[in-house]
Structures are given as C-alpha cells and as structure tokens.
C-alpha cells in the first residue's frame, strides 16, 4: 500500500494549501486576463509548480518556486483581474488573498500588457492605493515593436512610481532583470503614490474627512478617505462604520458630493482612465500603429465568418472529439493489456493465498488500472485545449457558441467540456476550468455527466441489437441509438435552467472577454499544462478512484460464501459439478449474491420492479454503479452465460430475450429495453466522475448532488417509460 500512502500525502499536500508561516517571501503575479501572466509564471518557475485550491472554494491556486538572489521564494499565479472590485468568486478570492493581511504578498509583480496600456493601467491605479509593494513586468513589448511603437520605460516608470521591466517570457528575455528588480523591491518595500487627478470637490472632501478623523484620533490617508466617500461599502470604512459619531462625518461629505450630481463610480472610472490615457500618451515615444489590416484581423475574417467560421469550428470540434473518442483507444487498450499482463503474473505468484490474490488482482491492480486508463483521454484533451487556448482560438470558439449556450445560463466556453463529455465525463469535467467564472463552471460540471459517454455505448448496442433491431428493423435501431445520445443533452437544458433560476440565482455574471491576438502556441506552456493536468488527476481524483475500487472489491468479496452449499444447490437442480458444466459461473453468481453488495441488491430489488427490472437487472445496475463499463459482463454472469461476453455476443442476446419473470411473462419487452437504456443514459454510474467532481469543485457536496439528481432522474424516467408502455400494452 506504499503507493496509496504516497498519493495520499501528496493529496493532502496539494489540496490543503496552508498559509505558510513565511519562511520565504511570497510573491503574487497579478494582472488583467490575457496580459501574459501564465507564460511569465511558467518562465519564472519552470516545472516547479503546485496546483491546489484556495481554502473552501473551487478556485484553483497555482503556486511555484522562484529563485531571487540565490534564495527561494514562493510565487502565486493569481487569477486574472480587471478590477479590485470583485464581481465573481474567482475575483473575490484573488482580491481577498491580496488584501488580507495574513495572506497578503510581500511583493506584487504586476503583469502589464504593453499593447493595451490604458486598460492595464486601470487595475494598476487601484493597486497603487493599497499598501502593496509593486514591480511591473511589461509584457507583449514585441507586439508594440512590430507595430513600430516604442515605449519610454523611464517615463513610464516615473509615472508609476516603481520599476518597470520589459519581459518576453517565451524567449526568456528580461527574466534575469525582473528577478533582480524583485530582489531589490523585497529588500526595500515602498508604497506607491499616484496623482489620479480626481475632481476638486472629491479631493477637498477627502481632505476634510482626513482632518476630522485625525482630530478624533483615527489615522486615515487621503486615498482611504476618498475610497469611503466614493463607495460607502469600501473596506476602509469598516474601522468606523459602526461608530455613529465618526460615520456622520463621512455621510456629511457624501451628501455634499452627491448633491453636486456626481456619480461616484463614473467619476472614479473617468479619473482613472484620464490618468491612464495621459500616462500612455506620455510614455509612448512612437505611437503603436497597426499597419492596415493586421494578421489577426485577416484570420478572424475567416474564423469568425458567419458561414466559414461555423464550418471551421465544427471541423475543429469534430477533430477534438474524434481524438479523444478514437485516437485514445489504442493507448487505453495498451493500458488494459498491461493491467491484464501484470494481473496474470502477480495472480500466478499469489496462487496459494486466494484472499490476498483477489485483493491484489481485483482490488489493487484493478484500482490502479482504472485510474491510469483515463490518462490518454485527459492528456489528449488538454493537449487540444492548451493549443486552442495558446493560439487564441478558444476565445473565438466561445464567441461563436455563446448565443447557443448563453440563453439557458451557460456561456460559449461550455462547449468543449460538454462535447468532451460525450467521449468521457472525466476529461470533460476537468476541462470546465476553461470557464473563468465559478457559476457557469459549476453548472457545466454538474450536467457534463449527463452527456452520453462512450462507456454507455455497449449497453445501447447490446439492448438495441437484442430487442429493438429484431422486432423493428435497422432504421429504428439506428434512430434509437441516436436518441440515446441525445436524451442526456435534452435533459441537461432544463437542469441548467433550474440551477440557474434557483440555486445560483442572483450571481449572474457578464460574459465580457477579449479575443486575444493569434499566436503560435508556446510548446513549453502546452507540455506543462498537459502534464500538470495528468498529475492533478493522478494524485487527487486518482487516489479516490483507487480507494473506492478497493472498497467495492471488499464489498463484493466478503463475506466468503460456502462453496459446498453452492455445490449442493447445483446438484439439487439435477446437474453435475464438473469442468465446463457451468458450475463455476453458478458459484461466481451465488458468491456475488451472498456478498454485502449482493445482499443489498436483493433487499432493494422491489424498488426497481416498477421500472420493469427483475433482480438480475437490478443487480447488474447495482454492480455498474462504481463503473458502468462492467454492466455487460455482469449481465453475462447474471443471465448465466458467464462474464466472458461482450455487447455483440449472440449467447447473451439469446438469454436476455428468453429470460422471464417467475410467472412466465417475458422480461425484456421493448419498453423494458428502452427503460433500461434510459436508466443507463441518465444515471451517474461512475465513481471516477464523482471523484473528478469532488476534485474540481473541491467539495463532496457537489459530487453527491450530481449523483443524487442523476440517479433520481434515471429512476423516475425509467419507471415512467415502463408504466406508459404498459398502458399501451407493452
């Protein structure tokens, strides 16, 4: 069990992000989305990265190690921000981590996009009013140079009041200089002071508040006073909001300002942008002038074209889907074969001790195998995702698809996670991280397992082949297969609408995003993403899947039944115990029935009778809860043809068709077949999915919620189908 002990400790290590007692300086990379934060982070840390969660929320925290003047420092890649006034959970977490005294960094590296100075200066102007220690890393200067622009760094640095270091992350340019500047700033922290040029009426009022507060023994800075005046909920006000005498001072001045018809937020933004625009025009020696149509515009004319754009989009999505559906298959077969080979060898070595043999082969090796089997799909999908993100196409995909997904409360970025889920929900759920806000991320994660994954296909093929096709012909067989793939999607829409209207009400976030300039993917970033996703899956979701596999093994293995009793039953049916007499299958079946899980199945069997399922189908369903892949072999065992069958086996189809209820009625009517397929389509029979939800939402609550609603939905719909079918005489 050394493996799991190791994995468990990494799990704890990576999930519980403890706020260190600061043996090392803490550095935060802060910046607008698309400013080049992650590339700079990768360039500074290399592979020395750790992925965890901010305490208590689904927001991921990526941190790493960087060397500053020969000493190690911790560096955190803070989620992209437009403003310190957070409106989403991700932004809230990021802002809180920056401003809270216990977690606030020793240094902020503000990543500023040189080709979009004005808007990038807005957030900087807010940072400058906190007491954070800031150094600027100026990115995308290569873009400015290409457009024949030139920035005077001395002028810019003079305006900002801190060092400004140009960096080109993918060429490793400026990294050394940035590290040196970081070292200097950590050694000598200083606060920034900007003159943002607020209207006189505001600055005068702020000065009066400062004066009065000082007289009453409260230390307040002019910027803090202005913050309270402009926004009464500003956290600076917390110190005296509850003291009526002091708060009255603020209220008085607020009345004066607003009486003069000043819209606080508008004035705030106007002043900051006026400042930003001034800084920009003075810092540019030569203005950056895009020559004619830029390459990005030309590519976009095609890729966002109303016809070609959609056609190309569908083509790319088809390629992504095919890759995880088809190209991953040989790798998965290889892993499967490797698992069987190891199981064969190890099983042979442990022949003498059946309990240990079964634990190692069916529990541990199976457990490891069922984790590793997901890696090809996860790695292939994240290869695509990071290339699509890296080139800038991902934002276009969201732009194209937003209308289609936006109306029900999702957004355009949900397309890839949902599409991937048609191959497998695990990579699909992990891909939901491309969505920058927690609300749509949660909704996507919760409906992703409804998409019909490839593991459901064998059930459809078996039942359609055995029941639908012989009676209704190939056309109906094809139609029902199509319908089965569609039903999950159809059900997902009302689920999203309900979640949107009920659960996540009142937190609707604007779509607002940018279409970044096209560029070639940075292979270093791609490789890092693929491997960090694989690692995260292995150490977190993988540990849970492994532990659950061993647990399920135990529930199906214990208590050991009495083989002699099974022999007696077998002989009692007038059969002989011999090789190939079918006794081995019978004993296996009886053993499962007598196991803890088997007894449980028996006990709840009556629950499934209204759906048209007898004890065999019920037990097959229960056996498939950990992973629906096992259902076909399980039905083989339960319908007496042995576990060595697949969805094309004629023997299994025959025994399903000839199976009856105790009173002689045929078991598998077309209605029962449909009801069983719908159950499999909607039910969350996959513990790996639950483990992935737990990992991505950082909470078991949402994993159980998905399990609960999907199981309930599956049950209700399959009962409804069976009952309606009976009314029509099925």
């Amino acid at each position: 069990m050394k493996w799991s002990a190791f994995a468990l400790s990494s799990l704890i290590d990576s999930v519980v992000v403890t706020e260190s007692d600061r043996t090392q300086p803490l550095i935060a990379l802060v910046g607008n989305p698309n400013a080049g934060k992650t590339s700079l982070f990768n360039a500074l840390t290399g592979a020395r990265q750790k992925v965890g969660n901010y305490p208590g929320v689904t927001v991921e925290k990526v941190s790493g190690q960087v060397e500053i003047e020969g000493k190690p420092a911790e560096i955190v890649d803070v989620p992209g921000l437009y403003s310190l006034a957070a409106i989403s959970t991700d932004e809230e977490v990021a802002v809180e981590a920056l401003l809270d005294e216990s977690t606030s960094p020793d240094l902020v590296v503000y990543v500023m996009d040189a080709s979009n100075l004005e808007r990038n200066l807005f957030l900087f102007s807010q940072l400058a009013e906190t007491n954070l220690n800031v150094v600027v890393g100026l990115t995308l200067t290569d873009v400015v140079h290409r457009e024949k622009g030139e920035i005077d760094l001395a002028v810019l640095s003079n305006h900002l009041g801190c060092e400004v270091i140009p960096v080109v992350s993918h060429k490793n340019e400026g990294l050394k200089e940035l590290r040196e500047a970081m070292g200097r700033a950590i050694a000598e922290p200083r606060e920034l002071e900007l003159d943002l040029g607020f209207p006189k009426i505001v600055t005068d009022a702020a000065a009066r508040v400062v004066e009065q507060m000082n007289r009453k023994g409260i230390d307040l800075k002019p910027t803090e006073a202005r913050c309270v005046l402009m926004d009464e909920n500003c956290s600076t006000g917390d110190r005296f909001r509850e003291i009526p005498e002091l708060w009255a001072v603020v209220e008085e001045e607020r009345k004066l300002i607003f009486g003069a018809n000043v819209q606080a937020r508008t004035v705030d933004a106007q002043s900051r942008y006026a400042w930003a625009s001034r800084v920009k025009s003075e810092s540019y020696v030569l203005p950056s002038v895009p020559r004619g149509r830029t390459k990005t515009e030309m590519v976009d004319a095609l890729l966002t074209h109303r016809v070609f754009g959609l056609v190309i989009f569908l083509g790319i999505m088809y390629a992504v889907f095919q890759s995880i559906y088809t190209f991953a298959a040989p790798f998965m077969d290889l892993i499967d074969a490797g698992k069987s080979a190891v199981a064969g060898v190890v099983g042979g070595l442990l022949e003498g001790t059946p309990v240990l043999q079964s634990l190692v082969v069916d529990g541990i090796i199976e457990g490891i195998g069922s984790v590793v089997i997901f890696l090809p799909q996860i790695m292939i999908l994240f290869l695509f995702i990071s290339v699509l993100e890296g080139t800038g196409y991902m934002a276009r995909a969201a732009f194209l698809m937003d209308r289609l997904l936006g109306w029900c409360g999702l957004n355009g970025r949900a397309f890839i996670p949902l599409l991937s889920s048609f191959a497998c929900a695990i990579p699909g759920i992990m891909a939901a991280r491309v969505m920058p806000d927690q609300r749509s991320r949660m909704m996507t994660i919760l409906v992703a397992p409804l998409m019909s994954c490839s593991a459901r296909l064998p059930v459809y093929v078996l039942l359609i082949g055995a029941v639908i096709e012989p009676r209704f012909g190939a056309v109906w067989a094809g139609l029902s297969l199509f319908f089965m793939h569609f039903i999950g999607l159809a059900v997902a829409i009302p689920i999203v609408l309900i979640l949107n209207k009920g659960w996540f009400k009142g937190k609707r976030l604007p779509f607002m995003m940018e279409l970044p300039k096209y560029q070639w993917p940075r292979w270093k970033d791609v490789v890092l993403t693929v491997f960090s996703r694989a690692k995260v899956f292995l150490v977190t979701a993988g540990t849970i899947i492994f532990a659950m596999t061993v647990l399920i093994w135990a529930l199906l293995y214990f208590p050991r039944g009495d083989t002699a009793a099974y022999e007696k039953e077998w002989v009692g049916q007038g059969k002989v115990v011999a090789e190939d007499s079918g006794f081995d299958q019978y004993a296996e079946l009886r053993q499962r029935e007598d196991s803890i899980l088997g007894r449980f199945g028996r006990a709840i069997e009556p629950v499934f009778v209204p759906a048209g399922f007898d004890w065999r189908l019920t037990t097959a369903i229960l056996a498939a809860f950990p992973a629906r892949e096992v259902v076909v072999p399980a039905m083989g065992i339960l319908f007496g043809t042995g576990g060595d069958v697949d969805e094309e086996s004629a023997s299994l189809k025959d025994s399903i068709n000839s199976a009856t209820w105790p009173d002689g009625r045929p078991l598998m009517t077309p209605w029962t077949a449909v009801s069983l397929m719908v159950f499999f389509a909607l039910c969350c029979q996959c513990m790996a999915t639950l483990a992935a939800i737990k990992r991505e939402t950082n909470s078991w609550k949402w994993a159980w919620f998905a399990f609960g609603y999907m199981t309930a939905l599956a049950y209700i719909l399959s009962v409804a189908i069976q009952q309606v079918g009976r009314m029509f005489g099925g």
Partner: protein
Amino acid sequence: MAERVISAKDLRRGMRARIESVGDEEALHTRLLELGLIPGTEFKVTKIAPLGDPMELELRGYRLCVRQSEVECLRLVELD
C-alpha cells in the same frame, strides 16, 4: 456631423458610436466603467458573432466582447 441617439440593439458591424451615459446601480455597470466604457468613450463595432450575439467592440486601443443584453444600459450616440 450627424448624430443620432441609438441603443445597443441598433448596433451593426462597422458602426461607430459614443457613450453618453452608463447606468450606476448594478455590478455590471461598474464593470463596464472599469473596462473603459465611460461617458465620452467612442467605440467601433468590429465583429458580430454569426448567431447574432455577442459582439466585439474596439475602444481605448483594445477590443472587448460583450453581449447585447449587457450593453443595453448604455445610452449611445451614433457617429457618422
């Protein structure tokens, strides 16, 4: 210069407009202001998605995608 008061629904590709006012209640309006959509700002509609929404605006030297519903709170004036 011909000026015409319009709303977000009237925006077409290639059109240029100036923002006259932004609402001042919701978080959404604050975000619009923070992104530089403040009174007096001029922008150009550079793209409209094939399905009719969202659209891309060019302002302050950068480009921003917004949904029509999110910019309905802006009072706009069409520029020539």
